[in-house]
């Protein structure tokens, strides 16, 4: 019971952040109730009460999530069932069922997180659940309180080699079916709509967005602009992803700039955390050979489906390549379109600046200078803006973060008829020297703009740079002006201790471990698995695999055989014992079964007195044969007489067999 309660507590703990509070209270109530039943104070719930509880749980979950479908409601439902099952688990069978539900519930933790710590937690809980299962087989004994845990640890240790073998060799199948559950926990990331005020939440999220591992040279931090989403459609207030951009583009040619600079390319792999969108983040201009990773017409990479679990992909970036050396008329129209007639003051500003500029280039510089020279402030907590949001931002409030700057910059450029768009993604990242990878967190989310210039294609402009240069050289969290705001919102976060060297080191170590876990364990599938096997075994052929399996399993099988034989030989029946047991089995025909603890004479007497037993002749024969056996087994015998008796016993057995078979 203790084991079960402990295991259940751990299972519930795994979901504690995801469950509604009332469910946790209900769980506490269940434990209390169960304890009271155990101590005899309360009685077990009646059927009517149970029905009431079921209805209440369904109602409660519906009230909490506004739906019964979806991952969280389903898990909550499962947890509720698991909690209330406690109230009706009394017999051993109930308890086994209870524990099996526990196993299933535990597995659901992986739906949310597959990190190293989660896996460790699952392992510990698994151990405890299994210990509970073992403890069911042993009556409680004070002196052996830790016995179940000891036993199950031994079993786990024995299972370890097989687990490892299967891990390395067992093929990973793609799921045969998938249910798309509407997740209520859509992770905040870079959105596909940008209107001022959208990204403010992101800055406070210190969870990991993705990590990049460069092979060879690493670009400087100020060049790390991870493009994720291109927002080309302006509806008068907000920037959206254009519908045509969602289409995949097969023939996405990348043209090299015709200048003397050599093509500069970077090779890197990215491990993308689930973002529940299909977007992948890369440096411009990227191409990838990883399956399922597709190129789009706006020079992004996109996954074929929403990323709901950690994925890895390889990227090659050519930073000198130009994006779209020419623009078609239609595209040009789309990229300069400003719907509606909002923000008249901004338009007027654009017209004024454009008139003063000699060229498009000069105009862009003038706009950038405008941001630099006017009294703009970078803040994570900008005021809310009204109908003409860009007007208000540019001319009145002048307080905002990257999204404000990027979108108003793009607006001003478009207002002058120059193609421009807003790019959403991440900027920078933290270099972890332990793994050599760049960690990009959610608070690195950033927005900037791209402007199309003839002959140069789409060029990156980051107006935020004009306002707060620190913002680019350091990440948000280091920004002195916003630090107070940031920390007051982040609560108890590891990042809070970044300035203490020890904690920072610990954090980086943890992250390094998590990275290795992700890259070696979670990503060990498909091609990686094949590559690994090939590295050790050479080409994968059927015979090789078969040979390996045989090589590994042969010792195990041989050892098993040997131990079985060893056992057998210890218990090898003497021929007379075997014969006597066959004799007794013959009596089974008459529903007379010798109990293991029944002596031969006692059994013979029972047979003799059996009312519906065999015929008298058969009884006589059986008695005679029993006498022979008793003489053999228990009377003093010389070698010869023993052999003779054994022979007679064998003969009697044959005769009796014949007699009984003729009877049926």
């Amino acid at each position, binding site marked *: 019971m203790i084991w079960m309660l402990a295991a259940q507590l751990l299972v519930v703990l795994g979901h504690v952040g995801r469950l509604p509070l009332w469910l946790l209270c209900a769980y506490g109530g269940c434990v209390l109730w169960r304890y009271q039943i155990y101590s005899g104070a309360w009685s077990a719930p009646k059927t009517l009460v149970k029905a009431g509880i079921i209805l209440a749980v369904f109602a409660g979950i519906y009230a909490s999530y506004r739906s019964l479908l979806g991952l969280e409601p389903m898990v909550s439902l499962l947890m509720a069932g698991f909690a209330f099952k406690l109230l009706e688990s009394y017999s051993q069978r109930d308890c086994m069922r209870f524990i099996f539900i526990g196993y299933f519930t535990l597995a659901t933790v992986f739906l949310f997180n597959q990190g190293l710590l989660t896996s460790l937690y699952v392992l510990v809980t698994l151990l405890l659940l299994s210990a509970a299962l073992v403890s069911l087989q042993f009556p409680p004994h004070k002196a052996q309180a830790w016995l179940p845990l000891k036993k199950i640890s031994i079993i786990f240790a024995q299972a370890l080699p097989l687990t490892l073998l299967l891990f390395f060799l067992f093929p990973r199948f793609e799921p045969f079916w998938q249910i798309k559950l509407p997740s209520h926990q859509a992770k905040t990331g870079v959105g596909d709509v940008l209107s001022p005020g959208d990204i403010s939440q992101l800055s406070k999220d210190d969870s990991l967005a993705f990590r990049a591992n460069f092979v060879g040279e690493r670009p400087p931090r100020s060049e790390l602009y991870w493009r994720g989403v291109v927002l080309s459609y302006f509806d008068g207030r907000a920037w959206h992803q254009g519908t045509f951009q969602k289409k995949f583009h097969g023939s996405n040619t990348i043209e090299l700039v015709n200048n003397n600079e050599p093509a500069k390319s970077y090779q890197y792999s990215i491990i993308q955390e689930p973002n529940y969108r299909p977007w992948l983040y890369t440096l411009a201009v990227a191409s990838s050979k990883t399956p399922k990773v597709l190129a789009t017409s706006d020079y992004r990479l996109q996954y074929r489906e929403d990323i709901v679990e950690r994925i890895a992909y390889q990227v090659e970036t050519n930073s000198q390549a130009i994006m779209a050396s020419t623009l078609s008329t239609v595209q040009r129209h789309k990229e300069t379109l400003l719907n509606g007639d909002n923000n008249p003051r901004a338009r007027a500003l654009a017209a004024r600046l454009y008139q003063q500029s000699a060229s498009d280039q000069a105009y862009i510089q003038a706009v950038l200078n405008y941001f630099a020279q006017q009294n703009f402030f970078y803040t994570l907590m900008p005021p809310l803006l009204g109908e003409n949001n860009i007007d208000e931002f540019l001319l009145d409030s002048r307080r905002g973060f990257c999204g404000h700057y990027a979108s108003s910059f793009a607006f001003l450029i478009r207002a002058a008829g120059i193609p421009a768009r807003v790019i959403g993604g991440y900027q920078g990242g933290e270099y972890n020297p332990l793994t050599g990878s760049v960690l990009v967190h959610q608070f690195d989310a950033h927005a900037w703009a791209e402007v199309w210039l003839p002959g140069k294609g789409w060029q990156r402009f980051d107006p935020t740079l004009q306002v707060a240069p620190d913002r680019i050289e350091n990440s948000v969290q280091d920004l002195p002006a916003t630090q107070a705001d940031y920390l007051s919102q982040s609560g108890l976060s590891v990042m809070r201790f970044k300035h203490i060297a020890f904690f920072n080191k610990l954090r980086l170590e943890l992250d390094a471990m998590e990275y290795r876990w992700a890259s070696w364990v979670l990503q060990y599938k498909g091609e990686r698995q094949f590559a690994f096997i090939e590295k050790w075994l050479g080409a994968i052929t059927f015979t090789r695999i078969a040979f390996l399996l045989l090589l590994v399993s042969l010792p195990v099988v041989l050892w098993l055989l040997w131990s079985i034989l060893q056992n057998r030989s210890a218990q090898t029946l003497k021929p007379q014992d075997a014969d006597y*047991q066959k004799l007794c089995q013959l009596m089974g025909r008459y529903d007379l079964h010798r109990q293991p603890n029944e002596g031969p004479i006692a059994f013979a007497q029972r047979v003799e007195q059996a009312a519906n037993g065999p015929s008298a002749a058969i009884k006589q024969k059986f008695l005679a044969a029993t006498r022979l056996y008793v003489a053999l087994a228990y009377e003093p015998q010389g070698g010869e007489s023993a052999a003779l008796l054994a022979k007679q016993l064998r003969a009697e057995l044959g005769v009796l067999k014949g007699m009984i078979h003729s009877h049926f």
Partner: protein
Amino acid sequence: MHKLVDQAVAEVGTVLLGKEQQVRLALCCLIAQGHLLIEDLPGMGKTILSNALARVLGLDYQRVQFTSDLLPADVLGVSIFDRQAGGFQFMPGPIFSQLLLADEINRSTPKTQSALLEAMEEGQVSIEGQTRSLPTPFFVIATQNPSSQSGTYPLPESQLDRFLMRISLGYPSLAAERKLLLGDDSRQKLPLLKQCVSKDQLFALQKAVKEIHCSEDLLDYLQRLIAFSRKHKEIACGLSPRGALALLRCAKAWALMQGRGHVVPEDIQVVLPSVVEHRLEHAADFRADAAGLSQLMLAEVAVLN
């Protein structure tokens, strides 16, 4: 030879009605040269059984009623100054007899109990620096009340172990009790009992027990039983080697009484409860009594391999 025993059983059966199995077990114990402990409530015929056994076997018989103020000297004997002889003279106590009935042994203090039990083990007593042998054969039949009754000093395990068997008589059957109620006082019949077994015959029986054959298969079974008692978790401490020897000795005596020259598993099964129950102790967490434990042993251990 076993006919003698049958006769003796029949003879005792005239005064102790309907208790043939217990009488047989008691005789088996004596033939196996062991001391017998009878545990039962007062008035169940313990005294009559031991008295009748003494008569039937032709043994001289003494009875000591154990009380809480009984001293070791009261059992063993004491030297008294004889004025006429001018020296001390040893006055042997009741222990110097062939069959001693120690009635309600658990009513006396541990000191007296241990004096008796030591004599049982050694076959001799040391009094005032002088060692004196006890007569042969020497049997002790002790009776005891269930230790839950008030005013008792339960015998420790080490001393219970000295008794080869412990039996209890139990209430008589309806028919036996009716016969008892109709008949005369059985105490009056006691002096009329015939001696069935002479002293020499008793020695011969005891000697014959040692010659009973015991096959390997049977020893296997015996060892399985012992091993079971030692490793089963309901049993706090299993049978000692002395317990194992006792079981074998009784099984041999039983086989002899059945007129067989060899032991069969059924012999062991018959004597096992009487031999092991007072030697087993159940583990603290289990409520089953010792009788349950011996039944458990019989039920769980397979006779054949």
